């Protein structure tokens, strides 16, 4: 019987590993294809037979990317906007989540549910009214305008996620801090936040990645190169029916690196945070 159980486990393990390999290929293949295409000459890209690897590797696409396009400006802009949005999401998310988790006031439940509803409204419905708002505020074509807009989806998520975490922190700890003379803000900073690092890591990662990858708002609200982000810059590699595959793939590959690095840094906390969120949220 024990042997059978052991065999079943082994089989399950093999099946699990097999699935992981499939998922791994599924995930990594697009990356490989991006890199391979970026290293191919145009004639090879358009050749009759698709080649699995660059037969004559060339860095021409990268030369064109860095030499003739303002790619580094796109990187700079995406970084400013993603970092700005992440910081503000953390601040507003923490304060909002604390209020909803700990304070008692009328409409608290309604606001909490409202956060979810806000998060669920698709950007395609919002971009025109938001354009009108930003236009009135003269924030079109500015970093600030995009940061403000991105807060509309990152703050609800951050608040909702952190709210679940904050509720999981024993109330007694905070009460003890209050008895010892801490203010509300003090107890948030000294007691709750240090115990919520996994959640903060998730919020940081989520806000950064969402801002980095966002396309629709960046496309509609930005015109100039000085503010254009990577995602919208990528679309300029398509001119009507002409695709500049080499530089586009090179830029796509490079644009995946910052979120990847962030994930590698926060990986431990992100996994823990997401798991806890599933239970406590």
């Amino acid at each position: 019987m024990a042997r059978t159980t052991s065999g079943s486990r082994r089989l399950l393990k093999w099946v699990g590993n097999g699935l992981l390999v499939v998922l791994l290929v599924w995930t990594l293949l697009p990356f490989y294809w991006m890199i391979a295409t970026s290293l191919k000459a145009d004639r090879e890209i358009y050749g009759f037979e698709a080649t699995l690897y660059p037969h004559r590797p060339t860095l021409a696409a990268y030369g064109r990317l860095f030499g003739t396009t303002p790619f580094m400006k796109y990187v700079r802009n995406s970084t400013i906007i993603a970092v700005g949005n992440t910081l503000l999401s953390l601040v507003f998310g923490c304060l909002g989540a604390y209020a909803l988790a700990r304070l008692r006031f009328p409409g608290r439940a309604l606001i909490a549910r409202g956060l979810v509803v806000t998060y669920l409204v698709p950007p395609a419905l919002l971009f025109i009214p938001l354009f009108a708002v930003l236009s009135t505020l003269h924030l079109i074509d500015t970093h600030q305008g995009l940061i403000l807009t991105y807060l509309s989806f990152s703050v609800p998520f951050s608040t909702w996620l952190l709210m679940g975490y904050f509720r999981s922190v024993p109330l007694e700890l905070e009460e003890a801090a209050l008895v010892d003379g801490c203010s509300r803000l003090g107890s948030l900073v000294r007691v709750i936040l240090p115990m919520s690092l996994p959640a903060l890591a998730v919020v940081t990662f989520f806000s950064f990645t969402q801002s980095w990858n966002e396309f629709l708002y960046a496309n509609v609200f930005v015109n100039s190169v000085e503010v254009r982000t990577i995602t919208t810059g990528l679309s300029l590699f398509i001119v009507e029916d002409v695709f500049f595959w080499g530089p586009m793939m090179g830029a796509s590959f490079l644009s995946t690196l910052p979120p990847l690095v962030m994930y590698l840094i926060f990986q431990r906390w992100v996994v823990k945070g997401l798991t806890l969120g599933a239970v406590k949220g």
Partner: protein
Amino acid sequence: MSSINRRDVLKLAGAAGVAAMSPWCRVGKSEAQRAKKLVYWHLPNFTPLADQIQKEQVYEFAKQAGLKESEVEYAVVANEQATAKLAASIEAGNPPDVIRLYESNVQFYGSQGHLLDVTDLVTKMRREPKGIFESSMTAVMYKGRALGVPLAVNPWPVHARLDLLEQAKVEYPKTWDEFIETSKKIQSPPRLYAFGMCLGLVEDTTDNVMNLLWCYGGKMVEADNKTVVMNSAANVAGVKVIEAMFKTHKIIPQGAIAWDNSGNNKAYQSKQAAFVMNPSSIYAYLDSNDKELQKVTGLFPVPAGPKGTVNQIDTWSYGAFKKNPYPRAHRLLHAARELRQDHPVDRRPLGAGLQAPLRFAVLARKARVQTLHQHGRDRRAGELRGRADSRGG
């Protein structure tokens, strides 16, 4: 935890406050900048050189209109994204001052009352010595008023592999019947199909199909510009020819029914199609990336049907939105009149991929689309083109 004191909290709160307020610091500056600048949205051409030419044009116009360079905001907007951006900006009452518009855009935004009436300006331009290519006028007219200033034309020649024609010892076909016969001789599927006809649910399909239907007397709408004509005998005859090319003769690749606008480009550029109908994007690509294929590529008129042949030319225009906050936008359009003279753009190669500039439109009026054939290189190509030219398509 014990290291955090009240001062730290205050510092944190201060930092958060600064972070929260920093985006607003430049609001006033941004407002001032928008009020001073004339915003021009540029939709990219097929090559950087063509974009550069047009950028020079815009700044030249601005200079002639008395604007400083710093007073012009030249924004590059991806073609595919322009519709969403325009929709939002128009709804918010903050569209660009001037934009390059495709002919359907002129009709669409014109019919909604968004575009400035520039009839006076266009009328003046038509009366001047070099005038405006008259065929372009239909693209900018709406209910008898001009709502755009013609900028450039975009011809749709047949791109043909001269080396394959030479190899099969055949000439470029004069009629669609000949086209089918020639196609059967030069193709070797599945590596090479004769006709890269776009048949997916995209704009290029409309153009490719209509180019053929027109030759059979077909049309999309009646002269009243309202009644849709689909089930006419002429249209059916044209569609049957396409069906025969696709099903019976198999000269169109089967995958063409799923192509997007780039499908025929890719087919020709990868040497999987001997003939394609397309604007100058393919030629521009070859000019930059594949000189060998360019050397054996000829540009020809569409083969004739029972009702003759039609050489389609699209028109790009400058348009100005009524709701622009910049009072001098009009002056940029007026300055565009100067394009009719010997502007530097006229000396640039058409092969650069710019939709042929207005001056070229004037040439085209005299010499028709065959003017484009000058771009061929080898002798045989010249002979083939000469024969094609002589039929006076």
